């Protein structure tokens, strides 16, 4: 253990110096970046993420970036090998699976390619990558639940619409609510997964309405499900939003959702930040200058928006999509 750690320190030191010298060699040249991401068609989040990366890693900003997309680990590993052969300076990676990356990252290291993980982390030794930029789903959930706690409702009767069970987002967002509800004695009248789907959410909320159970909060783990829930409420003429009967909470900060928030139809939307490129660029800038990073794991700053405080500027800045 100790030996490897010492070794890795030495190695990173060596790498840093080589990077420095390399840097000096090609001062005015573009920085070659290979980016491996999941398919942008996967979700609106991913589309925004991809657009953000494309907007940052441009020729104008001094980058020569190439993109590869796949939702399959083996294809991604293949792409990574190719990037290493192409002699890229940085390999940016959002891995499909946690496992299986050791070998290729070791190859990268040997070839002097610096690896930065974004959005998703992997099961590999920390020494194999420079940094890992992640969303803290637990924190997202905590921020939201803290906001809900702050509403000081006389009673809490919550419909909890979960995402696909077992996904990182679901675990983090459900965990926070479960914990606080248990501590403070909130009633969860319904807890069911709508698998991120608006229609399923609509049906679930409909079934609660049909069974005449009272509720005053809908905690949906993404914007789509919140939208489905609202459709069911509208049908039953149950008012929702700021100062109304039912509090609506969503996640992901789609632009359309933030507009609902701005209009007062919803109450809260938690951010899951897809705009990671600025963080990545910061890291690359630092590394190019030869600086050291304080932390390998970099948690992005993620906000929660309250309908009462959100501004048009927020909608434009933080809203995903158009």
């Amino acid at each position, binding site marked *: 253990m100790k030996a490897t750690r010492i070794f890795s320190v030495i190695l990173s030191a060596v790498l840093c110096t080589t990077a420095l010298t390399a840097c000096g060699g090609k001062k005015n040249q573009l920085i070659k970046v290979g980016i491996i991401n999941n398919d942008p068609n996967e979700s609106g989040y991913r589309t925004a993420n991809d657009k953000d990366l494309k907007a940052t890693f441009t020729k104008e900003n001094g980058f020569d970036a190439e993109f590869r997309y796949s939702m399959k680990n083996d294809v991604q590993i293949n792409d990574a090998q190719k990037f290493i052969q192409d002699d890229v300076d940085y390999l940016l990676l959002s891995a499909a699976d946690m496992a299986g990356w050791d070998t290729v990252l070791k190859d990268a290291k040997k070839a002097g390619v610096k690896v930065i993980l974004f959005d998703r982390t992997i099961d590999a030794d920390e020494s194999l990558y420079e940094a890992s930029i992640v969303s803290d789903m637990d924190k997202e959930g905590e921020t939201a639940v803290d906001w809900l706690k702050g509403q000081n409702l006389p009673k809490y009767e919550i419909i909890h619409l979960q995402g696909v069970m077992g996904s990182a987002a679901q675990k983090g967002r459900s965990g926070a609510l479960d914990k606080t509800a248990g501590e403070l004695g909130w009633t969860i009248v319904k807890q069911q997964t709508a698998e991120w789907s608006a229609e399923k959410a609509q049906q679930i909320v409909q079934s609660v309405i049909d069974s005449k159970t009272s509720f005053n909060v809908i905690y949906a783990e993404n914007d789509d499900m919140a939208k*489905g829930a609202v459709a069911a409420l509208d*049908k039953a003429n149950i008012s929702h939003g700021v100062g109304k009967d039912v509090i609506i909470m969503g996640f992901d900060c789609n632009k359309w959702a933030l507009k609902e928030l701005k209009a007062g139809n919803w109450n809260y939307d938690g951010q899951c930040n897809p705009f990671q490129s600025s963080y990545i660029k910061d890291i690359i800038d630092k590394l190019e200058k030869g600086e050291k990073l304080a932390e390998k794991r970099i948690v992005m700053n993620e906000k929660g928006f309250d309908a009462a405080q959100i501004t048009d500027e927020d909608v434009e800045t933080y809203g995903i999509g158009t």
Partner: protein
Amino acid sequence: MTEKTVLRKQESWISSILRHQIIIPIAALLLLSLFNLIADPSFFCITLGHNSAGNPVLSGNLITIIDCGSELAILAIGMTLVTAASGGQDISVGAAIAISGSVIIRVLCGTNTRPDTLQAPIIVAFLVACLVAMAFGAFNGALVAFFRIQPMVATLILFTAGRSIAAWINNNELPVISDESFTYFGGYLPGIPIPTPFFIALLCYLITWAVLKFTTLGLYVQSVGINEKTAHLNGLNPVLIKLATYILLGLCVAVCGLIKVSRISTINYSVIAKDIEMDAILAVALGGNSLSGGKFNMSASILGAYVIQFLTTTLYKFNVQSDALSAYKAVVVIVLVVLSAPSVREKLSALVRKLHTSGQTTPAA
């Protein structure tokens, strides 16, 4: 002799009732109703209220069932025909709904993702979606009919690619339509307290009924499904007929797409109509139709679709985790498929006969 004929008569009476295929969904429906009646009679309660737009609306579990089961019922119409003619199922309908829904949204929004006014009449958007969905249906049908690929394998292509195509149609964006009239199709028409999807399903059923009555589609489809060679020798073109059923299914898909996107005025191509293909196939099976093709009963399939929704709503009501829903459905499928297997049927009828004969002969012995 006389005893034997009596016996045979009894047997045929029982078996003719058991053989009538609509008995299967009806029995399932009764069973579910009975369960709900015992567990919580308020399940059947229907109340009249107003929605946020001020329209009168009925609400209650039964209304939810006829509302949410409608897409499935419409889909079951096409799936029944496809199953009967080609002896296989189209598993790409969910993806195809995503495509046709995206097309509708795309046409309505034009280049703007959040238009204040519709860029095209809804009917135009719907007709374009129909054409697109029928084209994809024709693609599936051509693979099955011309190239004789197994339907499930052939439709696997679109099943895999469909949602990406849907995403591409809207440039990966999530457009939202704010026009009030667009919500009618998945919601309520002003002044009418019963959900529109039910009327659309009813209309589809009536059209199908009329088509089956005023054309020879039913006879042709069944003939092709039962004995393709004979159908050919009787002047039919099996290839064309199979193709036609897939195109008709495409039409059903477009209608479902309209309802689905109208429900929430937007589309999420990755989750819309997810797993609906399995429910549609289950509806056909629950209707007592053989999944290997041949004879079909349209009413039984449609009833089967509503039974599935009945099951879903019941499970929601009793707080069954919705990721466990598919497990319950899987149990239903297993039971149905096993029961409809010829060898099992043979054994069952042998068992019935045995029970009868033993019941008759014991006194003699």
